[in-house]
């Protein structure tokens, strides 16, 4: 059964979208949120468990200090207030992958609240307000056996591995994002992308969407254009790539509009995103019966971060990625387009390091976004994964600047570097790539070229300087490229004028 959809432009003619994004970030602490079990990804089933994370009768939780620090650092980076006093709460519901049948989370006292992130889409800035960021624990993982597809539906029974149960999560919840109109899908994507960059810069998570260490839920509703009345929302889960975030928003907008347009009501429900088919399907209906019976976790004591501790953690924050970009763009004098290309290619760090090693911003950009981006693309790699370091690029450009290499030779040096032939200087030496600056040899080659092309030489004598190109080509050919074309030109003109 497939959903009826309405063309995206038609949706916008009649409705304003409102979005809410809930992002779960799995922290990269060595141990779990409430016990000392390791958190490594991919271990054999039920090898990273203890009485606490298995929910054995009698076991008790103790909070991981590092997880609290990571939560506070995330909150500070999102411009949040940090609670002076907050508690954990139990969220009670039954599910076989949840060992205690309650999740230890936070309810009305999140550790971080009231923040924001400025999101850039095509040069336009949208402020996404953050409602809260709170600490909680992950669940176990089920393997469904006996069904045709390995999926839960039709499965005969399930096998549960609790290694993941209790891994610390930070859930970051936005306030409703309004006024994005046609850009709603891109804003959603850009928000998650920037949030991921921030998480990477903070080094608090592996930030691998493909491994589930960042998971996004997308809430969406439509309101009749200009009415300002929020409609019924759906919550789409399982959105595990940046591209999917954008597509899921677009899909739900079109689906909602179709449902509303046919006079029906949107069901408040959980929907599941299917990466392969690009559609959402209905999950569990959110009914009034869903009652999590939150109450403060009596086995834990309140977390009351001192202001000194918070300020100490603030001191460990990396520069905000957006602010950093603006600063670097100004320092480097890049145009908006150049900067966007740089960020898009993931070349910001390598260019910064190349410049730090003494290269001019434009030269650094030229290599990383030109020759090296092309090679990376051929190999399906990101530029920072190439076997060439910013120091290598800086050295190659230095050789060009001092006249020892020209661009063509420099590309041959990169061939050598890719082939693992050593440092740029070693490649130049081994391959004999340095420009010949021996005036005697050069002068002889120029004389030879003049002698071999008398008619061209005559044209130059007659003042047709443009004809010199043919002679330069002949000299470079004899010199096997290892000459400075500018100097060759000077010599030709000296001899013929």
């Amino acid at each position: 059964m497939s959903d009826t959809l309405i063309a995206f432009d038609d949706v916008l003619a009649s409705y304003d979208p409102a979005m809410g994004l809930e992002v779960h970030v799995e922290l990269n602490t060595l141990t779990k949120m409430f016990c000392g079990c390791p958190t490594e990804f991919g271990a054999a089933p039920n090898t990273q468990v203890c009485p606490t994370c298995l929910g054995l009768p009698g076991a008790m939780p103790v909070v991981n200090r590092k997880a609290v620090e990571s939560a506070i650092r995330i909150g500070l980076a999102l411009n949040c207030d940090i609670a002076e006093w907050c508690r954990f709460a139990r969220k009670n519901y039954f599910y076989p992958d949840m060992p205690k049948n309650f999740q230890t989370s936070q309810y009305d006292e999140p550790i971080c609240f009231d923040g924001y992130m400025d999101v850039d889409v095509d040069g336009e800035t949208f402020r996404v307000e953050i409602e809260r960021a709170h600490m909680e624990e992950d669940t176990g993982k089920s393997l469904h056996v006996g069904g045709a597809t390995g999926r839960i539906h039709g499965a005969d029974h399930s096998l549960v591995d609790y290694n993941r149960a209790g891994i610390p999560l930070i859930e970051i919840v936005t306030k409703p994002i309004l006024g994005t109109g046609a850009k709603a899908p891109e804003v959603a994507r850009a928000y998650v992308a920037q949030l991921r960059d921030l998480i990477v810069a903070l080094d608090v998570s592996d930030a691998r969407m493909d491994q589930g260490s960042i998971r996004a839920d997308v809430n969406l509703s439509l309101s009749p254009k200009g009415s300002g009345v929020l409609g019924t929302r759906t919550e789409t889960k399982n959105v595990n790539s940046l591209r999917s975030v954008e597509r899921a928003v677009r899909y739900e907008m079109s689906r909602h509009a179709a449902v509303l347009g046919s006079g029906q009501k949107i069901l408040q429900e959980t929907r599941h995103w299917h990466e392969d088919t690009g559609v959402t399907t209905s999950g569990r209906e959110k009914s009034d019966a869903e009652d999590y019976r939150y109450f403060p976790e009596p086995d834990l004591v309140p977390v009351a971060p001192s202001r000194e501790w918070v300020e100490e953690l603030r001191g460990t924050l990396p520069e905000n990625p957006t602010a950093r970009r603006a600063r670097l763009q100004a320092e480097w004098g890049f145009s908006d387009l150049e900067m966007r290309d740089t960020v898009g290619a993931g070349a910001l760090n390598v260019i910064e390091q190349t410049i730090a090693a003494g290269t001019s911003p434009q030269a650094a950009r030229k290599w990383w976004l030109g020759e090296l981006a092309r090679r990376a693309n051929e190999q399906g790699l990101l530029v920072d994964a190439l076997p060439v370091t910013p120091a290598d690029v800086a050295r190659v450009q230095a050789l060009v600047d001092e006249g020892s290499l020209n661009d063509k030779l420099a590309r041959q040096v990169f061939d050598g570097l890719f082939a693992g032939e050593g440092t740029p200087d070693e490649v130049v030496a081994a391959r004999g790539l340095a420009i010949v600056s021996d005036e005697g040899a050069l002068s002889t080659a120029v004389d030879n070229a003049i002698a071999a092309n008398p008619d061209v030489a005559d044209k130059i004598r007659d003042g047709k300087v443009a004809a010199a190109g043919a002679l330069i080509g002949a000299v470079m050919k004899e010199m096997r490229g290892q000459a400075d074309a500018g100097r060759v030109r000077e010599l030709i003109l000296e001899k013929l004028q």
Partner: protein
Amino acid sequence: MPEITRDEVAHLANLARIDLSDAELDHLAPQLSVILESVASISGVAGDDVPPTSHALPLTNVFREDVVVPGLTPEQALSGAPEVEEQRFSVPRILGEEA
């Protein structure tokens, strides 16, 4: 006066995942009403200015360091399991959503 109906008890039993029989519902509902009536006496006893007490002693900031400590072997972890398969807890088919 709080009264707890048979339907309410059935709803609560459902939330608590207990499969109460009709006989049990008939038996429990009136008992719960009596209990509820007696505990409801505390409503209004403490004013808005009274802070709640969740712990007998006011401790805060009890943390452990992020250091791995040995847990259970898989054999120990699975020792009480009703059914085991592939070193995992085998559970009946799960209704509902994709996890």
